[in-house]
């Protein structure tokens, strides 16, 4: 019992064990589920989710009920902008990346300013922003075609690049290393944990609380925008609200990875494992013919169960 309790305290271990179990279960249900090509496909899909969850992770770590519900909207918008700016040509990739990152940063900035200057709770602020983005998407769709991914981008996302793995996997690994460094070896990282743990004490210790909180929302927008570009590369062309499916899973991945929803505790390594686990789970659910609505129900229930499991009494401070 105590050993189980010890293991339960290590979300990373739990996630990795679950991933293996789920893969085995998938293989049993549908032979070929855990084949190398299938696993690589799962990795690509997991990377997309993992990149969105990176920003979500930072916002949640920053505390004060930090959460970004607008990530899905930014992913969708970014995919459309990227599709139009490159429109099937490699020469447009650089401009597309620039435009998408700027767009993501802009909406993240609005979120951050709303939360800090206007003191709107993050839940409300980013939910409102999601509404704005969804409306914007409808307007855009009526005016312009959805655009196509450049071949270079599709290749980066789907074709082997180094050691048989596509570029997006390496991008994800790079983001993982970057965040690990940022959170544990830089003053910025120390300060994120400080404002997430005790904002008042952090302010009294000279931490620029508002600046850091705004920067976290900006980073969340940027990561969502990057994920949007990659998603375009994965699907070839963007379609209605492609990003919508990321909101709930990005939060689940973070919580599953051991980051406290109250802020100040956790890290990105666990979140990466959480993203993998969720992706494999989605794969299994698809294999056994559970449709999108069923998957959403299962995800929602998973999040609530996780809160029960990890969060007892400290996940959300009143």
């Amino acid at each position, binding site marked *: 019992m105590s050993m189980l309790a010890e293991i339960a305290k290590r979300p990373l271990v739990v996630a990795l064990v679950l991933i293996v179990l789920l893969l085995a279960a998938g293989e049993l249900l549908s032979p070929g589920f855990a084949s190398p090509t299938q696993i690589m496909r799962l990795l690509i899909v997991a990377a997309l989710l993992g990149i969105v969850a990176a920003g979500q992770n930072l916002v949640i770590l920053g505390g004060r009920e930090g959460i970004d519900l607008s990530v899905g909207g930014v992913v969708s918008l970014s995919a459309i902008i990227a599709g139009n700016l490159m429109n099937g040509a490699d020469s447009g990739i650089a401009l597309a990346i620039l435009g998408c990152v700027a767009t993501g940063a802009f909406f993240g900035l609005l979120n951050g300013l709303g939360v800090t200057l206007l003191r709107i709770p993050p839940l409300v602020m980013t939910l409102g922003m999601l509404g704005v983005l969804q409306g914007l998407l409808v307007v855009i769709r009526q005016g312009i075609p959805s655009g196509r991914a450049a071949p270079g981008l599709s290749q980066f996302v789907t074709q082997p690049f180094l050691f048989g793995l596509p570029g997006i996997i390496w991008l994800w690994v790079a983001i993982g290393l970057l965040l690990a460094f940022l959170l544990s070896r*830089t003053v910025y990282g120390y300060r994120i*944990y400080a404002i997430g743990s005790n904002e008042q*004490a952090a302010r009294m210790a000279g931490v620029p609380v508002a600046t850091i909180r705004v920067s976290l929302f900006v980073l969340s927008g940027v990561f969502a925008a990057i994920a949007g570009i990659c998603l375009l590369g994965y699907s070839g062309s963007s379609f209605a609200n492609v990003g919508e499916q990321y909101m709930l899973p990005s939060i689940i991945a973070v919580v599953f990875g051991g980051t406290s929803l109250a802020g100040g505790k956790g890290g990105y390594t666990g979140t990466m494992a959480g993203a993998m686990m969720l992706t494999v789970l989605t794969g299994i659910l698809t294999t056994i013919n559970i449709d999108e609505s069923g998957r959403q129900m299962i995800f929602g229930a998973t999040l609530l169960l996780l809160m029960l499991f990890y969060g007892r009494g400290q996940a959300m401070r009143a």
Partner: protein
Amino acid sequence: MSPPPDQALWDIPDMAKLSISGVSKAYGATVALSHGDLDLEAGEVHVLIGSNGSGKSTLCKIVAGSVKPDKGKVVLDGAPVAVSGPRAAKALGIGIFYQELSLAARRTVEENICLPDLPMTGPFVDRKALSARAARYIALFDGVTGEDFAANTTVDVLRADQRQLVEIMKTLATEAPVLIFDEPTSALDRTQVDRFFEILRRLKGEGRAIVFISHRMDEIFAIGDRVTVLRDGRTVGTTRIADTSPAEVVRMMVGEETSLVVPAQAEAAASPGAVALSLRGLSGKGFSEVSFDLRQGEILGFGGLHGQGQSAVLRALFGAAPAAAGDIALDGQPFVPANPRVAIRAGIAYVSGDRGRDGIIQGRTILENVTPIHFLRNRLKLASASTLRAKATPALAALNTKFAGFSHPIGSLSGGNQQKIVIARWLIDRPQVLLLDDPTKGIDLSAKADLFALVRKLAQEGMAIILYSSEDVELLANADRILVFNAGRVTRELTGTDRTRFHLYEAAYEAA
């Protein structure tokens, strides 16, 4: 003692309205009240007095039923009672004015006044009866409530003094035979206090028994019939106001003459250095017209009753709650601490007594808790754990901090050691001015000793230090001179041999 001849006491000889004997209350290891006695007669205003933490409020709360005593007896009208809760107190006829106002902010004045006992018709509130009842109590203060005060004003837009009046009206509206007022006059102006006293005198005439707590000697002597003094959680005595004097009351609060001598009082710094920090007419929320010079090598004490502006001044100097008016000079240069970052960069350090709120970063490691000031003052970008450990080690050693490792969570330490970590974060890069805002609250004796040994050493090395302590002994033992705060102003400066508990209390309790 013989009952005063001019009062209703003759009617009920030998039976107190309310008699409390030997009550005690401890919160964990902290004894709030060790032996409280109080005899309250009908038709008297009975003053309770004692320094910070002497147990007055605890005693009141026991009577009101909001705190359950560990031991002791409460006798009402000759019969022992158990005041099991606020509702029981109400049923027994005990009304209390709470020091921490208990008003519903978004409700109107009249609703608040009638809240403890709403007039009902069936299941509905009888608005008419409510207004009529409230109007009676509002009328009592007719002419002194100030502008923008009406029965249908919501409480949240009222000034502090007006809220206090509403709280008083609410207490009066209970029409309880026993009324307890815990610091009802702290925000009131002269005319309001006079009106309140008129009302108290009338209630006394009606035979009500009234307990009155105030820190103002002039008020106590103006309204009280008898006074009971508490010291360190014990009732030390009760005497008739007419038979005593303010100096006598202060002596009862201080205790025997021997305790006037503070053990090991440090010698004042022989030759304080140049002026490090200078305030001229500094005013803000909770303090006004504060002026003084702080010299290098000096430990300047802030004394007085709790909450008289000491913390507010320190927080203003640190930029946590900036001052509204006045000038600050640091090393002779004008200095505007707009926020803590500005103050920290200028070399000001601030240690809060509220460790949980202002100090520790819960759930994080000792290393993360000891480094934030170092980051800011050196504008660091990268955090190398090994370098930081090397920097922090001497600072922690200077305070004899006991900890197992830098990567252990701060929560694994005792309160005293947590506070040492918080203090040590200021010592990696020496500040010029150290502001200590009741820094020893809730920490053990050995940690206190370590802290004050270091503070004295820092002063000797030339640091300019301000120490506010709610523990008078601590203040007297460590401060070279003491500014006594009273109602947000510095009302007395105690130097040399004047630094005694007697003078400190005398200054703290005199009329502001």
